[in-house]
């Protein structure tokens, strides 16, 4: 029996899943989806949310059928040590790439809004050291980071009241003018923002009440969907079509119309504050990839953390241009879509076949 200190309550899954979904993606998602599915971008988001909810249900079924390990353990269990390790290694690479994409997109944002001229690696190093420090504390610290980040940033939602005063309802009308294929393209494009629910595959062994997990993870993914939906709808109503297609971070531009008598430019508060939003993302991706390294090479997780952290640091000298970054995020979004929207369906099939074979062989 593992000691109790490793476990967290089931409702913590809400914070973990939600905070790892919300990150840099939400700042740009209205534009990215709008480019594909135009006025019906919000339908794409809703469909995407529905899809995520189904996949979440599927994931939990897979995990329960496999007697609750992480995805890394499941891979080894299903495909054997060698092939499983190759799979795991690919997933570790994916998470490192996600980690870097979050870091660099935040760095890019902060360089645009106020810190122009600072070297990218300085930011990346600062974020990395902070992340390493948090992740070294173990899973419970990572959970704590998620919880605190949620509480400290959720109030930003109320900032939306200001853009609401200058919206125009005719901009979203008429609904359903785009073709279904365009809407589906929008769903694929929204994947970069909606991703994060795959964390479920890796936190499962740490959850205390496993039967409550379904409920809390569903609440988490729907809460995220609603947040993304609100930002998308408000952005569509707030900006005219051409303007929305031009803005890299429509949400930040929207926040820039918020002003109080004591803070004239609220976006200069919101952008540094966003570090709290991405911090859980960074912690979780680093934690998961180091867990993978531990599983593959059987080395201590501590070394894994340091080893992995070197990679984003090196990347920060290579991939820094806006155009490159855009391509990079796009690719990660695509890979993520296949890996976490499509792959779990296959995995579910394989698990069922495997368990049938097992029961048959047991009968013999």
């Amino acid at each position: 029996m593992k000691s109790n200190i490793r476990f967290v309550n089931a409702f913590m899954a809400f914070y973990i899943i939600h905070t790892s979904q919300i990150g840099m993606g939400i700042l740009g998602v209205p534009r990215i989806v709008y480019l594909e599915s135009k006025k019906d971008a919000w339908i794409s988001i809703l469909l995407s949310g529905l899809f995520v909810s189904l996949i979440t249900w599927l994931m939990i079924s897979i995990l329960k059928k496999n007697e609750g390990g992480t995805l890394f353990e499941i891979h080894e269990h299903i495909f054997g040590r060698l092939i499983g390790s190759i799979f795991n290694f690919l997933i570790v690479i994916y998470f490192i790439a996600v980690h870097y994409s979050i870091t660099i997109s935040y760095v890019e944002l902060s360089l645009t809004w106020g810190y122009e001229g600072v070297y990218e690696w300085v930011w990346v190093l600062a974020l990395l050291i902070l992340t390493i420090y948090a992740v070294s504390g173990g899973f419970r610290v990572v959970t704590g980071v998620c919880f605190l980040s949620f509480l400290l940033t959720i109030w930003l939602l109320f900032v939306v009241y200001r853009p609401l005063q200058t919206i125009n309802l005719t901009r979203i009308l008429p609904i359903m003018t785009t073709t279904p294929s365009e809407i589906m393209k929008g769903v694929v494009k929204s994947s970069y923002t909606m991703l994060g629910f795959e964390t479920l595959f890796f936190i499962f062994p740490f959850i205390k009440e496993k039967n409550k997990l379904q409920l809390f993870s569903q609440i988490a993914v729907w809460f995220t969907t609603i947040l993304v939906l609100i930002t998308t709808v408000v952005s569509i109503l707030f900006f005219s079509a051409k303007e929305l297609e031009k803005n890299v971070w429509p949400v930040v531009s929207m926040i820039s119309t918020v002003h109080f008598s004591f803070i004239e430019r609220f976006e200069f508060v919101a952008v540094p504050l966003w570090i709290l939003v991405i911090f859980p993302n960074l912690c979780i991706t680093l934690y998961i990839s180091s867990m993978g390294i531990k599983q593959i090479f059987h080395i201590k997780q501590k070394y894994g953390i340091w080893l992995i952290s070197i990679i984003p640091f090196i990347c920060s000298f290579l991939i820094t241009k806006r155009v490159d970054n855009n391509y990079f995020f796009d690719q990660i979004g695509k890979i993520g879509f296949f890996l976490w929207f499509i792959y779990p369906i296959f995995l579910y099939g394989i698990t069922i076949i495997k368990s049938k074979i097992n029961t048959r062989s047991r009968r013999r």
Partner: protein
Amino acid sequence: MKKIVILLCSLLCTACMAPEKIIEMQGISTIIGFDLLDDNTYKGTISLLQFDRNEEKTSVTLSADGTTNKQIRQKLEEQTSHDITSGQLRTILFNKNMAETVGISSFLDTMQRDSSISDLIFLAITDNAEETIKNKNYEEYPEIGSYIYQLLDKHEKKEMLVNSNLHDFITTLYEIGIDPTLPMIKNANGVAPSIDGVALFKDDKIVGSISLINTLYIKLFTNNKAFLGDITVEIAAEELEKRGMAELNLPKSDIYKITLHPIKYKGNIEIKNEELVHLNAMISVSTLELQPSTSVKNKDSLNKMEQLIGEALNKEFGYILEELKNLNTDPIGIGRKIRSVRKYSYLTEEDLRQKYSALKIKPNIKVEIKRTGTVD
């Protein structure tokens, strides 16, 4: 180990930033104006706020020529020891002539791109931006930028200006089926600059203007929370007699003048079909002034009065709509509304422009007199 990490974090997170901005070193620009010199060169004029207490002057104006906005700024930097910042930039003025011939959208790119420029900055049109900024006759404000900002801000909040900040302008400029408007600032010798009408745009070029009071008809349909400003209507006495209001014992006069204060309003663009659009609006008003003094007590005559006022407004609105159609500019956003109907959502900007001049627009403003002040 832990302590070293914390130390490293705190060093990294605090020290590695661009150098601090010291207020005495800053030249805070509050207003910038652009004039056209010839085909490709523009003249930019800025007003800088001075923070040095030893200086008597509170502001400095500088101008420079250049081909792009930021090049002008570079040249302006050469003329001052201060570091010019645009974080407090509140107003951008454009030369009217320039806005009529070359358009102003090329200037807006940098305003959008530069994150230090707020989205809430005002845009305005003036005959000669340089002269307006060099005008010394502003009131008690420290410099011209603050004065013009207050002038525009007050008018947007309290009076009859259609929203005119950068965000509103760009949004309406880029949107299909609505054209932007900007306030015009008049600059005369020896007096402070003042607001003088609203410029109407077609795309990014000025095609005409309407008076400040008449913007109320635009605001009725574009903004549902604006202040409309007071409405003055003149009604001929014979018109009153025709309606059978003579028995009211009204004081003898040829013309009746009524000033109304709008309390609430609701405007709605109703698309009847491709050729016919109804502009319905309902304004609740309180009467501010009646010349000659009249009291309307009975309900029937009040209804008739409301009808008369409504008709007078509709008549005037009709003229304005006719003018807007002649100029082929659509500040009300009728085109946008047409496009939001499923049947017509395929229409492009050119289609809408063509349709607009042939469109039948029927104004239908109703007035409801809710309050009459302390007397009736």
